[in-house]
């Protein structure tokens, strides 16, 4: 059979998307099934135990650990302020008593008679989960969170940094092949999701941060520029918690590479619309890719079919559009010209299953099947 399975990134003009919005620990869910929520609405919240501050009280009172409990001015469960005396030594013949102030504001949680440690627990830390995607609540997971559903235009990127944000799409490049330079970034892009084209330069990203853009989406990025932006060499692709003042999404890969034309066109056509964007990427078991979601109006893009439903997702077939994802043809798009069943010997000397790709200029190349991905949709 001239078919093979190769996963690809999803780019869909219209798809029904479900966002799971969960608390890290159990808490209260603030919405009910059927509620319509906006991206910024809080859907669930809870409180995490406050930070613990240990105090070596036996040392500070110069007494045995077993005596600490008897010298406490504040007892377990009592609230204390930072600097407030919480224990007092017996002193010598009632004089020269030493008072020990609390190192933190909170509640006395524990007084150990074995080690003489006193634990002060700080105020509980509120944790809120926002809707992120505007839409309808279709399921509530009691004490955990909810699931929000909406019809969206959905674009998966290959790599991102920075977490969830939202903004109005603002087109900065005139085509999918144009490099995003700093002079394309303007003050009007404050709070916007900036759409570039091919590679985004470090100067463009710095300018985007300077004007206060919410996110930048473009085809490629130089690793050297990423290093400069983060201030360190990124070792492992687990991202999302960076605090650099912007969310960045690379749709294709590292280096000089144009965004896939269809992806660019879909996003550019939605200029002025609000998009939910998340740069979080995790490339391990349970892979997570960055995403751009644009909620659609009823009827919009209705004739577009969800590619995951249109055919067997991930099936490589003759004529399927693929992108080569490794050198020496990295980034080139083409279509599958043949799928030989027998493994072939590569230039590296390895034997592997291959396919033949025909590029738009008519040239063909044989590449390992592992080195292509489907352009889904």
């Amino acid at each position, binding site marked *: 059979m001239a078919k093979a399975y190769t996963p690809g990134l999803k780019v869909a003009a219209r798809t029904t998307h479900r966002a799971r919005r969960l608390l*890290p*620990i*159990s808490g209260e869910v603030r919405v009910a099934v059927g509620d319509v929520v906006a991206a910024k609405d809080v859907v669930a919240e809870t409180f995490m*135990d406050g*930070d*613990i*501050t*240990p105090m070596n009280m036996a040392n500070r009172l110069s007494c045995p*650990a077993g005596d600490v409990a008897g010298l406490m001015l504040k007892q377990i469960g009592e609230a204390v302020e930072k600097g407030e005396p919480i224990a007092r030594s017996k002193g010598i013949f009632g004089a020269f008593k030493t008072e020990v102030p609390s190192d933190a504001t909170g509640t006395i*949680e*524990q007084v*150990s008679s*074995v*080690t003489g*440690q006193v*634990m002060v*627990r700080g105020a509980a830390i509120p944790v809120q989960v926002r809707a992120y995607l505007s839409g309808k609540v279709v399921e509530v997971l009691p004490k955990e969170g909810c699931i929000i559903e909406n019809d969206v235009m959905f674009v998966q990127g*290959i*790599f991102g940094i920075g977490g969830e944000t939202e903004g109005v799409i603002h087109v900065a490049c005139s085509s999918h092949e144009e490099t995003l330079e700093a002079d394309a970034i303007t003050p009007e892009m404050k709070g916007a999701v900036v759409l570039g084209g091919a590679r985004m330069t470090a100067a463009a990203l710095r300018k985007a941060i300077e004007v206060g853009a919410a996110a930048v989406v473009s085809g490629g990025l*130089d*690793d*050297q520029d*990423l290093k400069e932006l983060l201030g360190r*060499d*990124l*070792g*492992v*692709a687990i991202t999302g918690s960076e605090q650099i003042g912007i969310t960045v999404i690379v749709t294709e*890969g*590292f*280096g000089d590479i144009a965004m896939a034309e269809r992806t660019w066109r879909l996003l550019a056509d939605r200029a002025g619309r609000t998009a939910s964007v998340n740069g979080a*990427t995790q*490339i*391990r*078991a*349970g892979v997570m890719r960055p995403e751009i979601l644009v909620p659609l109006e009823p009827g919009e893009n209705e004739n577009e079919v969800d590619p995951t439903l249109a055919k067997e997702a991930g099936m490589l077939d003759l004529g399927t559009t693929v992108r080569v*994802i*490794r*050198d*020496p043809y*990295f980034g080139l798009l083409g279509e599958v010209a043949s799928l030989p069943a027998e493994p072939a010997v*590569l*230039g*590296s*000397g*390895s*034997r*592997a299953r291959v396919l033949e790709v025909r590029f738009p200029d008519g040239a063909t190349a044989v*590449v*390992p099947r*592992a*080195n292509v*991905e489907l352009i889904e949709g």
Partner: protein
Amino acid sequence: MHSEPEPPALDPDRIKVIVATDCGSTTTKAIMIEEVDGAYRQTFRGEAPTTVEEPFADVTVGVVNSVTELQELSGRRLIADDGTIIRRTSIDDADGCDIYISTSSAGGGLQMMVAGVVREMTAASAKRAALGAGAIVMDVIASNDKRRPHEQIQRIRELRPDMVLLSGGTDGGNSTQVVQLAELVAPAKPRPRFGGAYQLPIIFAGNSDARTEIERVFTVEDDATGGFDLSVVENLRPTLEQENLGPARDCIHDVFLEHVMAHAPGYDKLIDWTNAPIMPTPGAVGDILQTIARTQGINAVGVDIGGATTDVFSVFDGTFNRTVSANLGMSYSISNVCAEAGMDQILRWVHLDMEERELRNRVKNKMIRPTTIPQSAEALVFEQAVAREALRLAYQQHKEFATTLKGVQQQRTVGDVFSQEVGGSSIVDGMTLDLLVASGGVLSHAPRMQQTAMMLIDAFEPEGFTTLAKDSIFMMPHLGVLSSVHERAAMEVFEKDCLVVLGTCIAAKGQGKPGKPCFSYRMSGGSTASGDLAYGDLVVVPLAAEETAEVEVTPARGFDLGNGPGKPITRTAKGGPAGIILDARGRRLELPEDPVERRQAVTRMVESTGMYDDLEVAPNGA
């Protein structure tokens, strides 16, 4: 004919057909082992994607798929109509197997946090116990780890371990510090990965006098977070001079099965199917390596380099150690290897022109698309250069960890006055290493075995005589569990089917000047050859697989090949596809500082081994 899986009847004499699986993060690998003409052999293998994650969320689906492949290849029916694995009731049954065993590293394996009072002593012992059991150690908390208590608590809160191993204090010694440590861990309430009402398992293996207090600290009443499940075992450091890791390791395995595995999708079923407890994959690899070292009376090192991590196992004079270098790997972590080693260090192994900016982007592209494979010769050369550095860094970490016990008072003589060793020295000794076993994609799937051999030599720098081998199809995990049930079967398969001997490395320890004499050699037996090597030379003498040769080597003054500096030695060397590799490049292995000289040295190495011969190099270095 067949029957449902029943309680294990593990009479070794009745075990003739064995099915074993290893449920990895991405692939479940099944093998069949059968007794053929009185000897155990691995006969068939099958594999299928692991099904721990959605949409299947049941590990047994992948197990059944992989075993079904065995069934199709062998013609022996192994899967019953109800989807379970068939066991034979009689030795004459044509269908089914006698035992089924499994290892698992799916779902991220076993992730632990370890705490001990003194970082170099009890905490180090606790880490050894956890690693030896096959865990990934997320962090080691110690009273003297230079973090302030609130920083330690914050760290504990951030981690989501499967379990915590707490140690500290020698038996009968001061118990205050270990209780203090427990008092940090308990209120921090580390949240287990499985969330909800899962009770976080805590294993206490410290001062026996502190047990009552430890129980008090971890008894949490009315706690919505689920609280703790405390197990108490013998102290893993009963005295400073003694390490007793067995009980803690066993307890880790029990807790792994009872708590961690039981929460992973489908494992409740899998636990019922197996005839021996499911082991964490690296724990099983460690077991087989120890069995080999013990039965053959050798020192051995094993390495498994994966996409995300590199595991190193060693057995020296019966002492086993394992380390996991969590962010040294060839796909997910390749960028980290480049960051840690530095691009200069990687490119020193490359004999072709390569452009750094382009390479940096290629490395990141491999990281974000980890399943791609090198297509061009240049990409292969670069990937193998990265592998050398990943392996070198992982082995360095291993050597620093595998030490004699620290904190032990030593009797010192006048002769020791000039010695700088203060205890805690590495027990890993390149000169006494007999066997170096490689596994993991970049090593086992290298297009040529010479490439695998040279990656091992450049990264591990073995000294004297060392047999180089690779695990043919990553069978060591299966054999590790099997060794706990049927040691003879495990050993026979290991030697006949698992291990592929690449050849033997004979390397001189010492430093010299390029071109000056290093050692001479004379070979007889399977191959006859003789010659002299100058410092910096690398010579390969072909010797076929299954053949051996007597090799007499005579080092020049200042060089050692196992019998002391300048003293000749004769040993038997095993042949293989990489032959006998005579290495006079010195130990430590240092390449010339000057870029032109270095390029020449690496080119000579590439040419003398022929490892990249006939590969097409694109003119643009693409």
